[in-house]
């Protein structure tokens, strides 16, 4: 395990942000922290990235303790934050050589490394333009390239594709995939189901500062069983009554109830009859293959689905 964290806790004032997070990441794998905004994903990454000290618990990265040996940890990691940390008034090449010089690659070493990374991230043509002229996708690619100057063993990506258009998102996914094939371990946070599904070997669902569920995408989906039935309600009061009758997880925000289904017409008839008799019939019914969102809904009674997944 290149990373092992146990019982990470963090409070800010009266708010408990992390309430005992355990994580383990095998070298060469991709772990996704999947959870809604405010679940504690970024705080976890900041603690593991030596930027914030935990109030409780401990974490070791590459054998070093993040609290007591931050310098050694920093030699093994790189962190790409939620907002591209690039200098808009420097060129792509200047941004990269700056990082190389900070890492003591020497002037020539920094230049060579910058050229390699520019080529790899398809930024060679834009290398000598100021970053202020770059598109959002190019900035993210440069940001990622800057994290790779040192060839880290463990890379943290905090919401690497939030705010990107679908094409740029696909490019980022490609870049992350290539990194992993090259042997880099990646811990990424995301609020997008598809991103976790596509990139991660293991997924940790986090909610309210705790680990809600953990496993590979397939393992997690297997937990909720077969296909899912969604009952949609325009009326909240009916939704709440139906949830009680069916004893099912209701997603109040989405006004939806999720149920396991065997796909038979008989089951559907039965559910609708029961609800209608109680005056709590749904307005719409849909069914789908299980998703990570169903797992999350089942465990937390909340939904994860954000705009980009719809």
């Amino acid at each position, binding site marked *: 395990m290149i990373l092992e964290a146990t019982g990470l806790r963090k409070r800010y004032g009266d708010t408990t942000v992390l309430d005992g997070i355990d994580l383990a990441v095998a070298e060469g794998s991709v772990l996704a922290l999947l959870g809604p905004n405010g679940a504690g994903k970024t705080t976890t990454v900041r603690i593991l990235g030596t930027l*914030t000290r935990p109030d409780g618990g401990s974490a070791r990265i590459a054998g070093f303790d993040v609290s007591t040996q*931050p310098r050694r940890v920093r030699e093994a990691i790189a962190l790409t934050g939620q907002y591209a*940390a690039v200098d808009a008034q*420097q060129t792509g090449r200047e941004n990269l050589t700056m990082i190389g010089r900070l890492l003591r690659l020497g002037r020539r070493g920094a230049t060579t490394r910058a050229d390699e990374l520019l080529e790899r991230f398809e930024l060679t043509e834009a290398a000598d333009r100021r970053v202020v002229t770059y598109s959002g996708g190019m900035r993210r690619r440069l940001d990622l390239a800057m994290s790779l100057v040192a060839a880290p063993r463990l890379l943290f990506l905090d919401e690497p594709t939030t705010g990107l258009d679908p094409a740029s998102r696909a490019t980022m996914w490609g870049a992350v995939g290539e990194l992993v094939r090259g042997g880099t371990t990646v811990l990424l946070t995301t609020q997008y189901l598809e991103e976790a599904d596509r990139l991660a070997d293991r997924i940790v669902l986090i909610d309210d500062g705790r680990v809600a569920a953990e496993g590979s995408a397939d393992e997690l989906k297997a937990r909720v069983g077969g296909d899912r039935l969604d009952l949609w309600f325009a009326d909240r009061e009916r939704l709440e009554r139906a949830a009680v009758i069916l004893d099912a997880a209701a997603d109040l925000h989405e006004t939806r109830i999720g149920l396991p289904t065997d796909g038979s017409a008989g089951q559907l008839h039965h559910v609708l009859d029961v609800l209608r008799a109680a005056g709590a019939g749904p307005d719409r019914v849909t069914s789908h293959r299980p998703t990570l969102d169903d797992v999350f809904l089942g465990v937390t009674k909340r939904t994860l689905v954000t705009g980009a997944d719809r």
Partner: protein
Amino acid sequence: MSATLTMVDRSVRLTRRNVDTMIMSVVLPLLMMALYVYVFGGAIDTGTAYVTYVVPGTILLCAGYGAASTAMAVADDMNSGMIDRLRSMPVRASAVLTGHVAASVARNAVATTVVVGAAVAMGFRPTATLLDWLLAAGLVLLYVLALSWLAAGLGALARSVESASALSFVMLFLPYLSSAFVPTETMPAVLRAIGDNQPVTPIIETVRGLLTGTPIGSAGWIGPAWAVGLLVVSFVFATTCYRRRTTR
């Protein structure tokens, strides 16, 4: 050391490419000189040509305006994710402050040259020897360093670039309440007491004396003492603010 040099290099490059800060360092000093000499100067009697009187004050005033750029640049790094990137690397991340202070000194060197150049064009005839120039430059450098570290501290303290800019405007007031533009003897008693006993007045009187031969008196040691004291306090302030902001 190499981290510091890299960050100095970066800040100087960023400053050269930032149109606002370049205007602050070149155009503003020119406007100031023209304003004081041609608009106000005619009505102010200082016993000499007003241009001769006003040069040291304008240099210090420009340092105050330039400090806003420093505070904003530091605040931008503290709030944009750049500081997180540096802190997650095996380097001394506080080098980012040193970089911005160095860029500030470079900007002020430009601004001071512009002020002196413009003043000469407007009739300023300094009597200083080479040694006088060096001493005056040294004192101005101390003052600029002190203001730059103070600005860096304010930048580290501020939660946004806008509030960094607002905080740093405090620094603009001191020169106005000093002997920069009018002799303090012309002020009402209370203001005169403030003016005579604040750091900018003895620094200005020392620079003025060195450049134009006016009597310096006790300002010759009070001025440099203030400058060194301010520098120490500002540096400690900046390091404290930075450390508090980045406490893990």
